[in-house]
């Protein structure tokens, strides 16, 4: 099994990982514009985070450099903090305007 995994890094070309990451990132970016539900927009953000993480990990494995994987770890930390703040803003929005529609937020007056 160990040998199989090692050959997997050798066999799968780097371009395949790059194209897969681009595809996932494009789907996430389109979803942010496509949907009106704020919670789905947050999930599309997570999708874009993950495509970038996958690309960094693929480059790390092909370069044999563990630093990129540490960067991925930090991105995961920041994403976890970001999603807690985003969801609390969502709860506050639901409480104040009784909706999770982003179109309700088009007049951000102080």
């Amino acid at each position: 099994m160990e040998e199989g995994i090692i050959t997997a890094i050798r066999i799968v070309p780097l371009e395949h990982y790059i194209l897969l990451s681009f595809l996932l990132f494009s789907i996430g970016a389109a979803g942010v514009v496509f949907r009106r539900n704020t919670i789905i927009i947050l999930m599309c953000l997570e999708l874009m985070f993950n495509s970038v993480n996958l690309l960094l990990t693929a480059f790390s494995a092909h370069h044999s450099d563990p630093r990129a994987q540490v960067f991925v770890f930090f991105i995961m930390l920041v994403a976890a903090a970001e999603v807690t703040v985003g969801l609390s803003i969502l709860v506050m929005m639901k409480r104040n305007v009784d909706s999770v529609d982003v179109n309700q937020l088009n007049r951000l007056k102080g």
Partner: protein
Amino acid sequence: MLALFYILAALSVVSALIVVSARNPINSVIALVVCFLSIAGHYILLNAQFLAMVHVIVYTGAIMVLFLFVIMLLNLNTATEPMKSLGMRVAAVTGGGLLFVTLAAAIRHGVTISATNDFDPGVGLVKTVGHVLFTEFLLPFEVSSVLFLSAIVGVVMLAKKETPSPHPLSDGEGLTPAELERRR
């Protein structure tokens, strides 16, 4: 091995499309969990064992449960979301497709990387990543705990129910200046 990669890639792309297109938010969350698990499979295929475990624990275990929790708490599990206008939806799909085509065209001649290190399949093991994390990146690791502390404080402050505070010009009994004026 290549077949395994294609299966995982197809699974992640299809579930990502379901995330965007599902009417019910619960279905979106389930599809996103499937997408994250397939990305964890990609990590295992790249022999990034540490990242695979952290990804399953943090994303699938914590973040997606938090999403589900908020959906249940706010009673959003109904497909009553109004859609955007047709032009906006067409623009979104066209924009996403154009983004992908542009990015893919940028690498159409292939990518040649000149690896600076010798090939080392054990680069993603817990031992290697942990060693780099606690020697070279020790300060950012500690600073990220401060980030989490500020995130906790911010979330508690945001999600707290606002209690009506006494007006700064009132006498402390919750009366507005107009009421005070009327009372005089």
